């Protein structure tokens, strides 16, 4: 009889523990970076993610234009992450919670020197408890072709082999 009570106690403890874990575990929301192709992934050397607070003038279209033109509304910036690579993005890098309210997620694919934008995309969304994913589709800029010619990917190379070789 005592062993049965002990068994039940164990179940209750486990159930409570499970509940607690569910309550405390941080919710993860995916920031999906959609590359046009595997080739563009291989040509891109670095990824920059900037999050902005939208207003009447700061929209995704304006941000993309500003980013290509080298201007940025710094006062709207929530944060700027400039140390990512395509492989770290693929493997699931963690970036901070941008806080409540709608935000603009500007993602750029850069060259090795991190100063030429090869791919760019922006998406507006809000991160909250019920969010599932924010998807940012990247599109090639006018710089892409030149970067491709200067540094074409190796034949047979894939994102998997590239990232495995770099240990990411």
């Amino acid at each position: 009889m005592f062993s049965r009570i002990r068994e039940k106690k164990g179940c209750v403890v486990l159930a409570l523990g499970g509940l607690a874990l569910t309550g405390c575990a941080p919710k993860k929301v995916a920031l999906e970076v959609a590359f046009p192709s595997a080739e563009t992934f291989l040509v891109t050397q670095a990824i920059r993610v900037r999050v902005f607070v939208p207003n009447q003038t700061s929209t995704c279209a304006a941000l993309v234009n500003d980013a290509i033109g080298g201007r940025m509304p710094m006062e709207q910036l929530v944060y700027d992450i400039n140390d990512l690579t395509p492989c770290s993005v693929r493997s699931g890098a963690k970036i901070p919670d941008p806080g409540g309210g709608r935000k603009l997620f500007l993602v750029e694919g850069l060259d090795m020197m991190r100063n030429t934008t090869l791919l760019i995309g922006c998406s507006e969304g809000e991160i909250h408890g019920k969010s599932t994913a924010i998807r940012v589709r990247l599109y090639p800029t006018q710089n892409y072709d030149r970067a491709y010619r200067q540094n074409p990917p190796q034949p047979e190379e894939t994102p998997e082999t590239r990232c495995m070789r770099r240990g990411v």
Partner: protein
Amino acid sequence: MRAGKGWAFLMMGSCLLAIVPSKGNAQGREALEQAERAFIDVDFETAMNKAQEALQKGWLSPAQLVRAYQILGVCATAFGQPTEARDHFTRMLVIDPQSTLDDTVPPRLRAPFYEAKGVVEGRAERLSAEVGLDRAQGGLRIAIVDPFQLVKKVRVHARLEGAVEFEVSEFAPSPELLAPVEGSAEADRTEYWLELLDEHSNQLLVLGSEFEPRVVGRLPGVEKGVDLASEPLFWIVIGAAALAGAVTTAVLVDQGSKIELQTSAVFGVN
């Protein structure tokens, strides 16, 4: 006149504390000090002349400039020149919207100040400047808001982070202007400080300073930390702690504050 001497003295006492020593021209500061002394002695004519002289010598800091316009405004009011007084107070409030008259200024001398306050507060825009890095053009892009057209010159001191000397350049005022900074297109960060000046090179607005410059450019990135959530030991520790106060904690914890973003890559834009 004796009563006036009292309030003038009190007002000066409070305002002298606000005067910040600047690198400016000593002659301008000296003239302003003479204006202060005359103001204490309720010699409004000398105070007015010396404050005007201080303005024309130039190189006053914003705090000194506010004080000069305050003296000019009070003196002009005392001489029955309300239009001039309002103009001086308007300039004072444009430079520092929080500036005010001391409580000891008699009500009869306050009307032009309140009129000026209404004029300044009636405008939605405030004297201000915003600076951003324009990598494509290789310089600082400066946006200036000057609703009362007081700015006559913009002086920019800029250097690449780590450099010793600032490069100084001056521009005619414009709502938006570009100050080229050699090497800024490639550099991570550029340091600057900025002066908006009037026609006598008095400082209407200063952003940053030689010793505390402002910085534009790439913000430090966020390091990819260790993923604790994937460590079994982490969850064992959390589980043990949770058993002590699990249910209460689970109810009270705000789910919204525990969200994190995790990147992923997909291919093909569909």
